[in-house]
């Protein structure tokens, strides 16, 4: 009945609100939570992030000096960012892209200088 009529007529004669996503990308809000980045300079491979990760997405290998980060398990909560004693983890504002293969990200650290 006519109660919706003004709205649809207004919509019909004005520009659609649709954001043409793949062609027009709106930058995410500055506070948005996205992919993790590990700073190999600051990190001392203490493993705190691995212990507090609720999704088991970070595996720290102290001997091999690598961090395995699985973006397909990460829940983007930011717990590791806050829990890192060295503040070595930062969060991107962009989400991890979809993929055809689930590939873990392996961050390799330079050999220990100490």
């Amino acid at each position, binding site marked *: 009945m006519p109660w919706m009529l003004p709205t649809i007529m207004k919509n019909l004669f004005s520009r659609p609100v649709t954001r043409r996503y793949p062609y027009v990308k709106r930058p995410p809000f500055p506070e948005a939570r996205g992919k993790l980045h590990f700073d190999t300079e600051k990190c001392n491979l203490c493993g705190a992030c691995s212990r507090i990760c609720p*999704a088991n997405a970070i595996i720290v290998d102290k001997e091999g000096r690598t961090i395995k980060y699985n973006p397909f398990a990460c829940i983007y909560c930011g717990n590791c960012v806050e829990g890192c004693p060295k503040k070595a983890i930062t969060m991107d504002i962009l989400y991890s892209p*979809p993929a055809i293969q689930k590939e873990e990200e392996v961050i390799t650290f330079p050999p220990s200088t100490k």
Partner: protein
Amino acid sequence: MNWIARSRAKSPWLLHYDCGSCNGCDIEILACLTPLYDIERFGIVNMGNPKHADILLVTGPANHPNYRVLKNLYEQMPEPKVVVVVGSCGCTGGVFHNCPNILGGIDKVIPVDVYVPGCAAKPEAIIDGVVLALEKLKNGK
């Protein structure tokens, strides 16, 4: 042939099944249909019926009762079909990795073509994932 491939890529119909996610990805899939994202631009329609669908969008990790439902639905879809998993928990188990009733990622039940990470995945990510899936659909898998 070219026409067929083109049409396949231009007219993917979705089937969405929630396998035990927290709902976050589900409502983001629904949000994709709505004016702001409007995936009908790409000819995508949410069908709700496996027999009409080309893309199976699965959210959430597989568990025991869902396992067979998912298999049934997948079986009832006509070829060519692709499976897109939305959300970290569907990809690997995610935050539910140690829940007792969880089998793990969807790929333990049916073959998965595209993984969309995120918790909850953003509509943009879902659109990206579906576009990736279209490439597969185009070639008739």
